[in-house]
């Protein structure tokens, strides 16, 4: 009984928590923290158990209401879905614990239960999008995800948040309407919404109705491009991610955009198929967008002065790396992309959480005011440095490994010129991360160099998640095979 329904429990835990939370009214009570923390840990444990079940290559399939696939909704939980949902739930749990104290800085007391409700609904939608094997179900989860992720930006109710959130809503809806249009074009010629069934029909459809498939690829890629902020369609991201409360920024930048990339991957590789992608010449097209994102995201980040805006633009560049790995459509490329998904979630999480801790304590957001920050908040600045070194790709940190494997995949795929662009993008990353670190620790712009380091004075719920992320970044940088053993099993599910 347990094993039959197990993966769905991981989906239900956040949903049940989201339903219970509005009943509590006191935003700072122990009761609320116990419910939120308990539900998050529970979801993590369930996701870990379902990962254990799929590690040997087993696959759970779950039919909702026991309807046969094609009529009902089917969930397929293979090693990819169970591992990625564990990553999502685990990092969300760290961020949720961090949010207990940090969110009181941004939100009124009575809004805090609603904030956690939104976070859990978002978690539910993310896990659902990873699990589902049905196109319309994917659309519904996607809409839940986009509404909740807009709401955790606008909940701060400042003018800038509302404008950013409305922009996100408008562009996100254009994206999801495009995706639904693409799904309609596929349904028109196949009469099927189940991804596995569609994949079987696809060669015949490609023979008889290639125009429908092409239009559908166009709509779906545009839609997911907007949702995942692939370079020329990224304009909503910096506003939304920088104005949101810190825990929201960490979740949106670290996890949410990647969920849309996963969904795009499912559609491209598992439904349309690599053969059709090669025939259309989609790969080179995607590589060009990914590469321009890697450069332009970093170029935009250099000009920013708001610390969270720097990090948001850096996300645009990092999404380029993941998109590059995906668009190479080779096992090595996908492996590098999966590694970077995890590495970037940890690094961007650590960066946003430490930047948030500095804003929480000192109220400084402008990078020009950061001189001497290494003396004022040594722990947060150390975590920030570890995250930034990872982003630049300094050996010994997780980001180096993903860049290394991405470089190998690029050489394998026969595009050596991209190696230069990866190098250039790393140098650009160094150009905007290193000055912040140098200012903070070397302090050559301070009026008086402090003679002692202060302690950060952060509560345990804030520094422990930051420390865990920092340790994991270094751990993955030194022992990448811990993760590579698992991500290495995933590419064959897509190719």
């Amino acid at each position, binding site marked *: 009984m347990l094993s039959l329904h197990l993966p769905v429990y991981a989906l239900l835990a956040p949903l049940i928590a989201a339903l219970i939370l509005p009943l509590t009214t006191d935003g700072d009570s122990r009761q609320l923290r116990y419910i939120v923390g308990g539900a998050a840990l529970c979801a993590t444990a369930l996701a870990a158990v379902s990962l254990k079940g799929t590690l040997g290559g087993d696959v759970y399939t779950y039919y909702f209401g026991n309807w046969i696939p094609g009529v009902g909704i089917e969930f397929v939980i293979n090693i990819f879905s169970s591992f990625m949902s564990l990553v999502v739930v685990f990092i969300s749990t760290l961020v949720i614990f961090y949010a207990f104290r940090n969110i009181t800085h941004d939100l009124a007391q009575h809004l805090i239960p609603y904030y956690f409700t939104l976070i859990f609904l978002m978690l539910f939608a993310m896990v659902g999008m990873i699990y589902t094997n049905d196109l319309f179900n994917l659309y519904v989860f996607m809409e839940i995800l986009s509404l909740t992720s807009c*709401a955790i930006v606008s909940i701060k109710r400042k003018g*800038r948040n509302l404008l950013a959130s409305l922009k996100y809503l408008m562009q996100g*809806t*254009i994206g999801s309407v495009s995706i639904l249009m693409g799904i309609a074009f596929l349904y028109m010629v196949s009469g099927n919404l189940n991804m596995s069934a569609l994949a079987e029909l696809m060669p015949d459809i490609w023979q008889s109705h290639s125009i429908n498939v092409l239009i559908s690829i166009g709509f779906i890629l545009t839609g997911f491009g907007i949702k995942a902020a692939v370079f020329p369609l990224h304009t909503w991201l910096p506003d939304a991610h920088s104005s949101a409360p810190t825990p929201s920024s960490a979740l949106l930048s670290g996890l949410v955009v990647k969920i849309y990339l996963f969904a795009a991957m499912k559609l491209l590789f598992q439904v349309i198929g690599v053969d059709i992608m090669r025939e259309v010449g989609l790969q080179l097209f995607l590589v060009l967008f990914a590469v321009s994102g890697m450069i332009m995201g970093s170029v935009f980040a250099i000009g920013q002065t708001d610390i969270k805006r720097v990090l948001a633009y850096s996300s645009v560049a990092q999404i380029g790396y993941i998109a590059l790995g995906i668009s190479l459509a080779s096992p090595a490329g996908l492996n590098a992309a999966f590694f970077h998904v995890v590495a970037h979630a940890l690094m961007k999480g650590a960066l946003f959480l430490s930047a948030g801790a500095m804003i929480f304590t000192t109220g400084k957001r402008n990078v020009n005011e950061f001189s001497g920050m290494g003396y004022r908040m040594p722990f947060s600045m150390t975590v920030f440095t570890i995250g930034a070194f990872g982003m630049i790709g300094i050996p010994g940190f997780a980001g180096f490994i993903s860049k290394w494997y991405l470089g190998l995949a690029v050489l394998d795929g026969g595009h050596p010129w991209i190696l230069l662009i990866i190098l250039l993008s790393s140098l650009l990353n160094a150009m905007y991360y290193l000055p912040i670190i140098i200012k903070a620790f070397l302090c050559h712009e301070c009026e008086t160099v402090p003679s002692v380091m202060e302690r950060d004075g952060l509560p345990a719920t804030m520094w422990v998640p930051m420390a865990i992320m920092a340790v994991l970044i270094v751990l993955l940088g030194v022992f990448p095979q811990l993760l590579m053993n698992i991500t290495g099993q995933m590419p064959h599910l897509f190719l």
Partner: protein
Amino acid sequence: MIYSFWIQILEHVNYIGAACLFVVGLYTVVTHNNFIKKIIGINIMETSVFLLFVSIGFVHGASPPVLTLGDTGGPFVNPLPSALILTGIVVGVSITVYGLSMVIQIHQLYGTIELDEILDTEESKDDSPHA
């Protein structure tokens, strides 16, 4: 020849209508400064997809998919797209409601719902020393 061309057009008028509505909606969202008009544009875009999706399920000369006792069967209209679009409409309504509620709050904060006027006030705020 010409006659059959027009018959073709008439038979696929739903698809053409959906394409037109999609473009009209996109144009409205992208070009207007007024937030309410943008939300109307979003709604038009959603309606276009709903129209297309429901039209897909239609089978020429088929009966509604309701089985009665002693029914011999025969071609039925596909009920699945209509059922899916009911969900789609609910999603569309929630997006509209959420968007409009934000427009109300923006109006309370800025006193206007025109994007260009709001951006002007934001910029003048940035220039002032006490930003």
